[in-house]
C-alpha cells in the first residue's frame, strides 16, 4: 500500500497522489459546528478507517464526500472533481462514489436483484441483460446467491447490508464510503459484512470506513483517523494508532472501547 500522507494542521494543496482529498473542510448545521477544518488524503486502493465518539461528525464528513451534505467551506476532491463547487456535476461524482448506510436503506418494494439493477438500468440506461448478469455476479460476490428473488423484509440485517453493498458496487464506483454499516447488526452478522468489506479492500477498492469496530480497523485499515469535536485529533497507521496513541483524547477513547 502507498504511504499515508502526513497530517498537517495548516493544509497545503492536495497531494498529487491522493484520490480523495479533503482540505480544511468546515460544516455547520445552524449554530452547531459539526466539522471544524478537516483535512485528509486517501490514495487509490487505500482503506482508511475513521473512528471517534458519537457526534464527532464522522457520518457528516463522509456524506460531504458524495455531496449528500453540502460543505460550508474548504475543498473536497474526488479523482480531481471539486465537490464544493456550485457547478458540480453530481452525477459524475456519484458514479465514482458508492455509499452504504447504517440502516441499509434498501428499496423495500423491490427484490434483492432488482435493488441492485435499478440504478444502472434506470439512471445509467445500461443494457438490462448485461446489468442482470453483473447483478448475479455481485450477489455471488457478497455470498448471497439464491437470495436474488427475496425482498429486503425477508432478509436478515447482515444480508440486507450485503445487498446494499452489492447495490452500490453495481454502479462501478471507484471509492466506497461505509457509514457505520455494522452498527445496527448483531455480532454474528457483523462478521459477514466486515468480511465482505475486507475482501473489497483486498481487491484494491478505495474504502473510507466510519466504524466502531476496532478489530476491523486494526486489521484492514492502512491508516486510522480519530475524530473528536469535528476535528481530526490524531491519525497514524493502525499498529502505531492502537499500540502507541499519543493524544490523551485518543488514549481515553481507546481505553473505553478496547
Amino acid at each position, binding site marked *: 500500500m502507498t504511504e499515508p500522507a502526513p497530517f498537517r494542521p495548516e493544509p497545503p494543496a492536495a497531494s498529487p497522489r491522493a484520490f480523495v482529498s479533503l482540505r480544511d473542510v468546515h460544516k455547520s448545521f445552524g449554530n452547531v459546528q459539526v466539522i471544524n477544518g478537516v483535512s485528509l488524503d486517501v490514495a487509490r486502493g487505500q482503506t482508511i478507517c475513521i473512528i471517534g465518539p458519537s457526534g464527532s461528525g464522522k457520518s457528516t464528513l463522509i456524506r460531504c464526500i458524495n455531496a449528500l451534505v453540502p460543505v460550508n467551506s474548504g475543498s473536497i476532491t474526488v479523482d480531481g472533481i471539486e465537490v464544493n463547487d456550485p457547478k458540480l456535476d453530481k*452525477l459524475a461524482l*456519484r*458514479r465514482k462514489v458508492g455509499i452504504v448506510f447504517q440502516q441499509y*436503506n434498501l*428499496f423495500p*418494494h423491490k427484490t434483492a436483484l432488482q435493488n441492485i439493477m435499478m440504478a444502472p438500468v*434506470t439512471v445509467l440506461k445500461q443494457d438490462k441483460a448485461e446489468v442482470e448478469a453483473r447483478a448475479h455476479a455481485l450477489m455471488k460476490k457478497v455470498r448471497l446467491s439464491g437470495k436474488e428473488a427475496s425482498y429486503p423484509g425477508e432478509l436478515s440485517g447482515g444480508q440486507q447490508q450485503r445487498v446494499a453493498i452489492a447495490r*452500490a458496487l453495481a454502479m462501478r464506483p471507484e471509492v466506497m464510503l461505509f457509514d457505520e454499516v455494522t452498527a445496527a447488526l448483531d455480532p454474528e452478522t457483523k462478521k459477514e459484512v466486515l468480511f465482505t468489506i475486507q475482501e473489497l479492500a483486498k481487491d484494491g477498492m478505495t474504502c473510507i470506513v466510519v466504524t466502531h469496530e476496532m478489530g476491523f480497523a486494526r486489521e484492514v485499515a492502512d491508516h486510522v483517523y480519530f475524530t473528536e469535536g469535528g476535528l481530526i485529533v490524531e491519525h497514524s497507521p493502525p499498529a502505531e494508532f492502537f499500540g502507541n496513541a499519543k493524544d490523551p483524547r485518543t488514549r481515553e477513547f481507546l481505553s473505553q472501547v478496547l
Partner: protein
Amino acid sequence: MLRLRDAFSLPLVSASEGALRNWRRTERAGLAALLVVFVCSSAYAATVVSGHDSIPTVLWRWAPLLLWGFLFNLVISALSMALGTVAGVPLGIFQMSPNPLVSRPAILVTQFFRNAPWLVLLFICVLLLPFELRIGTLRIPFPDWVKAVIGFALPAMANVAEIVRGAVLSVPSGQWESAESLCFSRRQTMMQIILPQCIKRMLPPWMNLYSLITMSSVNASVVGVTEMLTITTQVHAAEGSRPELLAPLYSFALICFFIYSYPISKWTEYLELKYQVKE
C-alpha cells in the same frame, strides 16, 4: 409477519384486541338496534293504519325507484372520487416541490379546499357553473349532477392531496438519501421509489375518504339533483305524506347506505391492521 407480532407487541396487541372485541360487540348491538327500529316502526304503522296500502307494499312499490336513486348517489360519489384522485395526487406531489413557484400555489389550493365546508363548495359549483359549455358550435351540456360531481371532487382532491403528502413524508428519509447517492433524480426517486411504497399507506385513508364522500353525496339533494334523498321525499309526498311512512322510507335510505359503506369500513380496518403489522 405473525412471528414479529408475537415477539414484540403481544401485550399491546392483546389489549387492543380486547378493546376491538368490545367495540365489535357494540357495533353489532347498534346494527341490531337499527333493524329493530326499522321493523318496529313498519309493524307499528301497519297495525295502526287501515284503509291504506301497508308499509311493506309501499316500500315494495317504490323500491326500484329508490334504488335507482341510490345508484345515482354511488355514481356521483365514484366519479367525484375518481376526479378528486386524478387531481389530488399531482397536487399532493406539487406541495412538496423544492420550487416555491410550484409548491406555494399547490399548498394554497389544498388548504383552501380542505378548509371549506363541502356544502358551500357544492352550492358554488351548482349555482355558479354554466349550464352548458360552448366551444364554437359545439355545445356540451352541464347538468346539475355533473356540477355536483365537481362540487364533491374539489374537497376530495384537497383531501387526497393531503393523504399523498402524508404518505410521502412517512417514507424514511434514508430512502431519499440512498436514491440520491445512486444518482436517481428527484423525479425518478418520487415515481419509482417513494410513491410505490406509498400506495399501501394511502389505501386505508383513501377508502375512508371515499366512504365520507358517498355519505355526503345526499347533500346533492339540497341543490336539486335527483338522487336518493330527493326521491325519498318525493315518494313520501306521492303517498299522501302519511306520517307513518316517514320512518320506514328514510330508514330504507339509511340502510342502503349502511349496507354499502359498512363492508368498505370493515375492509379499511382490515387493511390498516395488515399493513401496520407488516411494516
